[in-house]
């Protein structure tokens, strides 16, 4: 194995303040970009991982079990109210706190196909990418979306459309390395190919 700089040298994603670990940008699912169309649930800044999935449930590790408690401490009825296809919209620093991958697992397990935020905490950013939960960094979209609005998003282009108001927004682009990981089918296939190579 050779020493490597990934993605052709220095990259400063997004311009200005980095959004999360290891970059800001269009995310992350190691799959095909399917158009997303769902109802928005809005949250404030600093939504922490204990709020997303309280530690008392960390003796579980399947998406199904965890999804039954997603965002429960923010709103005890949320796991019942959220419908498959709904999306989360939050302000700065979404996913701060613990490294628990159970947080993106719980969100994904609830059928939520996308989180849009002004910025993401760094470990949550990595974990979303690694577990295939699409996330978009789009501050203007966050300001332009109200709870209950219908939102459409194209993960391939990063275009977000508020179907309720008609406004359209552009998410920060995906850094080149993230594209490489996505193309490889995710982190572990990427690393496996490196070792084999």
């Amino acid at each position, binding site marked *: 194995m050779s020493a490597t700089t990934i993605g052709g040298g220095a990259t400063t994603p997004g311009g200005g303040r980095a959004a999360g670990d290891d970059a800001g940008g269009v995310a992350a699912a190691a799959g095909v970009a399917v158009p997303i169309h769902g109802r928005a649930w809005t949250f404030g800044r600093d939504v922490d991982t204990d709020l997303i999935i309280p530690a008392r449930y960390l003796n579980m590790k399947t998406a199904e079990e965890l999804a039954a408690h997603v965002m429960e401490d923010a709103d005890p009825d949320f796991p019942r109210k959220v419908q498959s296809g709904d999306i989360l919209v939050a302000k700065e*620093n979404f996913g701060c706190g613990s490294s628990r991958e159970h947080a993106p697992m719980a969100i994904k397990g609830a059928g939520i196909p996308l989180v849009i935020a002004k910025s993401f905490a760094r470990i949550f950013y990595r974990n979303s990418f690694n577990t295939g939960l699409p996330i978009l960094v789009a501050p203007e979209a966050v300001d332009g979306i109200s709870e209950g609005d219908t939102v459409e998003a194209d993960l391939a282009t990063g275009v977000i459309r508020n179907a309720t108001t008609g406004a359209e927004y552009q998410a920060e682009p995906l850094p080149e390395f993230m594209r490489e990981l996505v193309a490889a089918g995710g982190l572990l296939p990427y690393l496996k190919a490196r070792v084999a190579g």
Partner: protein
Amino acid sequence: MSMTITEKILARAAGKDAVQPGELIIAKVDFCLGNDVTAPVAIDEFEKAGFDSVFDSERIALIPDHFTPNKDIKTAQLVKQMREFCKKFGIRHFYDVGRVGVEHALLPEMGLVGPGDVVVGADSHTCTYGALGAFATGVGSTDLAGAMATGEVWFRVPESIKFVIEGGLPPYVTGKDIILYTIGQTGVDGALYQAMEFTGSTIDALSMEARLTMANMAIEAGAKNGIFPADDITKAYVHRRFLREPRYVYSDPDAAYATTYRWNAADIPLMVAKPHLPSNTQAAAELNGIRIDQVVIGSCTNGRIEDLRMAADVLRGQKVHPDVRCIVIPATQAIWQQAMEEGLFGVFLDAQAVVSAPTCGPCLGGHMGILAEGERAVSTTNRNFVGRMGHPRSEVYLAGPYVAAASAVAGHIATPDQVGSRKAAA
């Protein structure tokens, strides 16, 4: 090219002469770890991906500390999965009850991590080892699975922020107060993605325990890592302890920093972080009206011997307030034994505090001290998020051991002076 400590360590681990902030690299890890929450998910991912070997069985530690001694059947299953994985791959740094301690106290104590290392852990408080002059950062379970299999992990090289702290600290003010003060100034995402580098005469005078406390909470400012330049205190700590060769790395005098903050140590009071963010700080002396139900003294932040000595200094000859439960949790077996031999347990028991087995336990609302609705705790741990220690409508106030112990005696948030302790300025 001028570089910071963090940049130099990452350049070495990437096999490059130099790196700069923003650059994406693949680095070789010197050590990786997971716990009973994160390792089982990592093992699942490792197996799903079809890996059949680990990169180095001596450089992986799986530490069941969060819910141990196993709090329920589900937890027992998780720890069993870790035990079996370690047996299968010859990973000997697996420690069961009787040997285990809180991971970020245990690994430095055992000499498994040290200066110049690149350490990744599937636990956000992995940043603790920056106190030793290591680059250490928290990652998720899938990253841990990749690191265990290949010994590699990708990073975006962080910018560094420098904190220069000068002068003597007021009486009873500790590393915990410095880091709470710092987070209060920067906010919980004030160092998002960045490295926090701590220097200055105040830092030079801090014990290794105090530095571990500070580095531990770098994540609470959103940082990727916290780091302290090694000095004689570092060298004395790792001497005959660290199992590999230390690599002492220092920032170049003209290295670039995104920001430099300067604190005057004399301005830092005994601090408390109020619910529900570690940045929601206020001087402890201003919070006397806040009545409490529980005090927790322990964790990867403040469960080391120096912390227990501080608590004992305040509790000696005192009684815990009748309306308060005071739970003391030495972070490792070695700390437990030392505290016992120093007579600290006699002080705690006389004060009617309880001493627990090493565990993360109540810090994350796991077990061994959960709060009911409407209850309030003062805790030496690191997070005070909604529901962190129990019921979603319970509250956690973060503080250092002196304030925690004084509050246990007073029944409300208090400083040592307010319960009759006296100490001169350092």
